[in-house]
């Protein structure tokens, strides 16, 4: 069952890649059609794209169900399982918004993000881990699943916002255009992380080190990437492989910084190769494809996603989260970092809605806010989980 589950996920991963190409083709094809018939605007390529996406979605749900049967609990309890589930929800959210607005460009951006997420998730441990007592709760299941759904819908707002920004990049000031390109660069860093991790994991690279941790205890750590940043007072155990270049003080997590550096370096190389081949910024490369898009529709999709996603997120992350915490710890709110960041996300989207409703922040401003909102969600998912430890640190 566990093998079936992995295969289903793998196939859906490939299908999303293929669907992206069809949505891309659909935008090009649309140019002619759009003028004749403004109401029904779906092209053949777009139809094929959404059908392939739907098959991928069904297979991914199949992954979820089979892993559930194999493990005996819904697979949402560690980083791999949660991010994968989040990617399923993202596809689902994309399909809802596609159904409402029929914009193929949404697929061109949303599906690669899904692909990156699945790839990123696979870099974490994929073991089916038995549940510790705190995780044995039905409220937790409801809490995590609803939160993922809410975040996924909010992520579509980011996708639409990003399309808006890329589409209008040539009308922007140099500084703003730089930041649009920075978003593209960050996405490529994730690709860099996946590329570096996969390469060295195929090469079976492992490096064991002993070091002295913050509490002054001798501890062992295993690196799966060549060590640039060695931990505090390290000694190398494994033979062969690269000696650490720089030693770090105890309060820095050297292994994570090392991974981050590798992701950054690999991402930068990939980015440079693209820049050298295309001789243009990535945003400029994508811009012509999006030229025909209507700003108002993009703006509305972005806003609509927040309108749908915000209540779902509130219900899942805050209300269900509080109910779960009440049963697990006897207090519904503990000011744990992950909790606080959920509150910050909520504050942020409240501010977003108020700025939009009352201050008239539409179009570009709104698009930037959608990007920042998604950055906060990702920060909470990745940084808070991995770096700031708290009650939720079991999710690593």
């Amino acid at each position, binding site marked *: 069952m566990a093998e079936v589950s992995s295969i289903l996920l793998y196939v859906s991963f490939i299908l999303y890649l293929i669907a992206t190409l069809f949505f891309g083709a659909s935008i090009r094809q649309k140019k002619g059609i759009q003028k004749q018939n403004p*109401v029904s605007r779906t092209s053949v390529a777009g139809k094929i794209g959404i059908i392939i996406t739907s098959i991928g979605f069904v297979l991914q749900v199949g992954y979820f169900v089979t892993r559930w049967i*194999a493990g*005996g609990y819904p697979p949402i309890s560690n980083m791999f399982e949660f991010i994968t589930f989040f990617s399923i929800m993202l596809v689902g959210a994309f399909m809802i918004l596609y159904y*409402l*607005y029929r914009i193929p460009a949404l697929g061109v951006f949303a599906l690669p993000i899904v692909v990156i997420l699945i790839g990123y998730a696979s870099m974490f*441990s994929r*073991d*089916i*881990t*038995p549940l*510790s*007592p*705190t995780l*044995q*709760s039905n409220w937790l299941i409801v809490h995590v699943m609803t939160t993922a759904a809410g975040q996924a819908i909010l992520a579509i707002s980011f996708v639409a916002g990003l399309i808006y920004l890329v589409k209008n990049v040539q009308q922007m000031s140099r500084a703003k255009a730089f930041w649009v390109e920075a978003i593209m660069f960050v996405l490529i860093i994730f690709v860099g992380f996946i590329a570096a991790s996969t390469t060295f994991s195929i090469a079976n690279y492992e490096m064991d080190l002993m070091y002295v941790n*913050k509490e002054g205890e001798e501890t062992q750590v295993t690196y799966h990437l060549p060590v640039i940043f060695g931990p505090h007072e390290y000694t190398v155990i494994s033979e062969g492989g690269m000696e650490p270049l720089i030693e770090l003080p105890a*309060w820095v997590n050297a292994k994570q910084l090392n991974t981050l550096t590798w992701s950054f370096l690999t991402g930068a190389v990939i980015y440079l190769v693209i820049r050298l081949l295309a001789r243009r910024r990535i945003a400029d490369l994508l811009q012509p494809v999006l030229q025909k898009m209507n*700003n*108002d*529709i993009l703006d*509305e999709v972005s*806003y*609509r996603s927040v*309108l*749908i996603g*915000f*209540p779902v997120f*509130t*219900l899942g992350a805050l*209300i269900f989260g*509080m109910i779960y915490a*009440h*049963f*697990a*710890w*006897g*207090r*519904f709110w*503990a*000011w*744990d*970092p992950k909790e*606080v*960041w959920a509150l*910050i996300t909520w*504050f*942020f989207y*409240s*501010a977003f809605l*108020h700025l*939009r*409703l*009352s*201050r*008239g*922040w*539409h*179009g570009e401003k709104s698009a930037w806010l959608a990007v920042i909102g998604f950055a906060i969600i990702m920060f909470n998912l990745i940084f808070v989980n991995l770096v*700031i430890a*708290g009650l939720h640190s079991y999710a690593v």
Partner: protein
Amino acid sequence: MERVKCECGHVNPPGTILCEACGKILVESEKNKKILDMRYEGTARRSQTYNRTIIDKIWSFFSSVKVGVVLIVLALIASAIGTILPQEMNTTMTVTPEQFYADQYGWFGRIYYALGFHNLYQSTWYMLLIASIGVSLVICSIDRAVPLYKALKRQRVTRHNSFLKRQRFFNEGPADNIQAHLQTVKERMERHRYRVLEENGNIFAEKGRFSRWGPYVNHIGLIIVLIGAMLRSAPGMYVNEMLWIKEGETKAIPGTNQQYYLKNHEFIVEVYDESDGEVYQEALKNRGNIAKNYQTNVTLYKAEGEVLPGEKPRLEEVKSGEIRVNHPFRFDHYGLYQASYKLHEMSAMTFQLVKKETDEVIGTITIDLYNPEKKYDLGNGYAVEILYYFPDVEFKDGIPQTKSPNPNNPAFAFQIISPEHPEGERSIVAIQQTLEPLGENDYKLAFQSVDTVNYSGLMVRKDRTLGLIAIGGAIFLFGVILGSFWQHRRIWIKQDGETVLVSAHTNKNWYSFMKEIEIILEDTALPIPVDRGSGLEKAVNENKGVGANG
């Protein structure tokens, strides 16, 4: 200021911009606008009308959404700062907080502590910030909701031309042969769930007005949640205590005024092993032990009658049960939660009194580490007196002192009394260490054994505010859904002599609204409205700093 009578006959409250009934522009400056600001229907808001007394000024200040957003953003930034380092309440410290932050995080920790960020969420300024958001919620809502409600209730089917022509969606055309199509249009509107009203051949279609109340409903919910959170500091509403209880022990439950007692029969830890299935083997190999269950089996007692201080009460058994993580034990609004445990804690130590010369064992004493006796009499002139007891000893400059009241590392200063030494010999005994400060002794206390016990750490909670917070949360969510899943859409069709005016307004999702209008007016003689919003948005923004939307 005075009430304003419109030419349609409706009398508007002072400060009204657009007539509540017909929409005619009542304020000169509005007439220059190509598109009206429809957010609050041009109603008279207190904050915009009165600005004389100090109350007016406070009201105006808090009624501003700009101020509200600034407060939200401040709360956001403050909350984020609180996550940089762990909060004091979420950390177990063996030293003072000041020391802890300095030791762990260096100069940054020192500054963090000095600024009070280690207790950020309980600080007065953070509470004031949240309270200001609360005030802003109340004032913003009242300032807008009341006039908006009145205006929407009083709106008429026939609107003034100046109102219709300044809508974002507008078009006009010849009124010649529309009569034949009006019926079709009305039917289509009804099919799209519009409420259609007619007056002198003019049509007004409206749906989803309730969604306008969404924001105000969710604000009420938030206020209730804030009130609930405030009530926790009221006496009797909230209890949060920790109960460490040994296996076999019966103890009063803190926070219950000595009313309830708990007996810990057994504390259980289970871990996963091979029997739990093949699928977990890989994870167990990689991760080592993973806990499966933490459980305390308990019996609850209630103290009967008047409890006198220092006296053991009569206990009546109430119920027995188990406390597991995620499955608290409940009684009388209280909940007991499995929060922590300590295994193999020292509880008693046994020593033999030995005559050094002959290795003769004179007697054995067992010291309860939680409740040591002053003197242990062994008969025949032998006795052991405890002069000092250090449950958690630490030698500072050779002088023993205790770090904590918990017997983690016990040490004793004994006075060994024997027939040879009726005054006693002084001996200091710690784990693997014996000191005889006043010279060589004839007798010694030889360590024999230690008894250990398992502790269960239970959290005692009572929170009478939960109901209120739950209601607030539910109302909030209901309001948010109301306001975001639906939209308020209105279409006006007015015949004015030879021309027909078609205008439409929605509070959001204009693109979808246009698609709906296109379907309703398709293949009729009525002109399809033109979206003039996006082109004019910039101009409107410059005029007043707000968009035509919303």
